């Protein structure tokens, strides 16, 4: 019995070591192959074994989770893929999340002007926005410095408007980046305070995205759509 256990432990160690030796790229390609063959669980395992997961791995993991019916995880993985470089992945992620919302019977249209603005900023790289803003900003200040603002009023107003627009877009983008998002594992109630003794202000569906405003250990203060309240930390996964 003892020998058997030893052999088992040694065998497991060797297996884990062999797995570690396999390159991440190889695991990625293997996962892709398994996904194409319809082996979503195996593909998920292959992707999960990748040590340093990039955006493509998270995205593919999301697809695997969706195929396995694990919608909360699918949403989390897609949001993680989008987090690093939204301008590249937003379109695909938005499409898949719309499909997910449709699958769970929920509308995923932007609910607020901020969400709509966020969706717009996702298509423009942040660096481009920053550079354009700085160009307009320097032009504006140059006109002020040289007194041109009094002569070319039209140009001055245009520069002001463009600086303002790009400033707002950058601010929205940074706000989105700094926003902590979470996804519900199951249908969960949202409470008025950080305890179940408070009254429930509503219910959040499974795999729904929310924004975390406060963290009190076991409870998160969240905003989900128009609902603002507290949810138990164990019912949600922070992206």
């Amino acid at each position, binding site marked *: 019995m003892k020998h058997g256990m030893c052999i088992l432990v040694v065998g497991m160690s060797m297996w884990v070591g062999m797995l570690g030796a396999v*390159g*991440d*790229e*190889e695991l*990625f*390609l*293997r996962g*892709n*192959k398994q*996904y*194409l*063959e*319809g082996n979503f669980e195996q593909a998920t395992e292959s992707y999960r074994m*990748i040590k*340093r*997961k*990039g*955006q*493509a*791995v998270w*995205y*593919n993991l999301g*697809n695997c989770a*969706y195929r396995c019916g694990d919608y909360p995880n699918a949403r989390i993985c897609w949001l993680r893929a989008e987090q*690093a*470089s939204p301008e590249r992945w937003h379109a*695909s992620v938005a*499409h*898949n999340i719309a*499909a997910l919302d*449709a699958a769970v019977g929920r509308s995923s249209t932007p609910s607020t002007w901020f969400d709509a603005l966020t969706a717009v900023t996702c298509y423009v*790289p*942040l*660096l481009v926005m*920053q*550079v354009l*803003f*700085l160009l307009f*900003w*320097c032009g504006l*200040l140059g006109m*002020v*410095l040289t007194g041109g603002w009094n002569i070319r009023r039209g140009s001055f107003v245009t520069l002001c408007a463009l600086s303002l627009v790009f400033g707002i877009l*950058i601010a929205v983008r*940074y706000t989105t980046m700094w926003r902590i998002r979470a996804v519900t594992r199951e249908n969960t109630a949202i409470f008025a305070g950080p305890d179940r003794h408070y009254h429930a202000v509503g219910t959040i569906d499974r795999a729904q995205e929310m924004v975390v405003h406060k963290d009190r250990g076991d409870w998160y203060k969240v905003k989900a759509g128009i609902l603002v309240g507290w949810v138990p930390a164990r019912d949600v996964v922070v992206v």
Partner: protein
Amino acid sequence: MKVKIVGNVALSILLAASSVLHAQVVLRVTDVYGEQMSSAVAGYPFRIEVSAKGGGKTMRRPSIEGLDTFQIEARETRMQLINGRSTMSHIYRVRVDQPGTYTIGPAVVDVDGSEMKSNVVTLPVVATSKVPQQDQSSKKRSDQKRADQVIAVLRADKQDVMIGEPVHCTLTLYAAHPDTKLVQVQEPEMPPVKISGQRGPITSTDTIKGVTYHAVSWEWDVYPQEAGTVTIPAYRLAYTVPQDDDGFGGFSAFFGLRQNVQYIYSNPLTLSVQSLPAHAGPVHATGTFGAFTAELKPAVARAGEGMMLTLRIEGNGDLATLAMPELHTMPAALKYYDSKSYITEPQKKGKGTASKSFEYVVQGIEAGEWEIPRQQFTYFDTATRTYKTATTQPIMATILARPDAGRADQKMPLESTTSDTKSQKDTQYDDGELHPIIHYGAWYPEHSWKLPLWLFMLFVLVPLLGVMCVVVWRSVRGRRSAQAATRQYKKAFSYARARLRAAERKQAYHEVHRIFVELCAARLSCKPSELSEAMLEQKLRTEGFSEDQVRAWQQFFMRSASYVFSSQNTIKDPTLWSQAYHWIATLETVL
């Protein structure tokens, strides 16, 4: 008279004849230290000396029969003159690598136009590699004490070898005196062997027959290329030993006279090299080899993408010249190209063995699972004296279809068969409502390009602050200049009076005109350069001055101006000062 002439001619003929008749050409063979020797050692140098004793004044280079069978390392010419008798010597330092009996001579010499022949020497050359020759030779040297303290030894780990088998050689210089310094190691011309893996110098301390020596060693591997007896010749080493005190103290050291360069030879080595036994098929190497492994990275790739197949052989052999093995029975769906090879030395000397890796770029041109079969490496094992074949394990390579494989305009290099097309279709998964998975790129975290927030804010705020500073500075400057103009306007007359008084004290008549110009400019809010006489007259007329008054002003103004352009010797009119005070008072009422 005739008798005298005949006598002189006869004497000359007699002298010439006696010198030629007395001349003697001798050929002798000595060791490198000049001592007579009866036999030589293969690979160890010795000297052939041709001397014309009591010969004439000129002796051309001799022609020595049989000299061309030796390897000439150096040659020199010496001339001695003792009691009017000259001795010319031609000395050759030679070496022969093959044992046997050699005949040297006769040497034919042209002495003062007469051809003379030397004796003939028969020299037996023996093969030996065990006796350090310098031990014997050094005993005969004059500075025996020094020679005993320096020994050069050439060693080999084996003497009976096969072609291509590595022979580990070590050359060591032992010196008893701690201040002995090695100056040069002169490598002899080598027989047909390959040399690699040179290491050194390695210093150590060794005790031989109770004497402690400081040792300097070099190591290398020799790979014989031809069968037969191969002699590795003796190495010549130059070293310096410090001289004893010569009585000149520091002067000798200053002129470098206390360093005496001496030479010593190592022993030669004789290897018996045998041919490899016959073998059907290619032989890659000779030596002792261990694991032969194959590795494919990554094992899964898309069609057209490159994979790296690495074959690695470990062992002790001539790895440097080991050629890239040909890959055998590779599947047609896998193309491969030779990439590079490299040798990996063991991390610690003496522990582990070196290995050589051969890299091939493998490219899948058809989707599927393909096996890279066992590869073979055949070598002559010098330990067991037999041929052995090392084989790798087979490797599976998984080639995935390219994402654009379905496009008609982008065909694979190798046309797929019908069954292959079917298998590809079977592996395609329709993602339906989802966007398809990402097949390539970004499996690792990608860096998102953006300016850091602090830098961005710096770029925003620094120009803003700059502009704000400029605006504030401009505002302050404008206000200050306005205040200065007002002050100047209000105090123009009192200032003009003060300047006038100062000018009067100095009797500076030429200052008066400038004081009035600046006064009027300040009151009329213009620059002094913009002020004109007509402008002032117009102003006076406007303020109600009569024509007489204006004319009087014109006269005063022109008079004051005349002092500006007048010389020092011009006669000065003191009434100018009273008129000036008067006009200031007058102008104060109208300006």
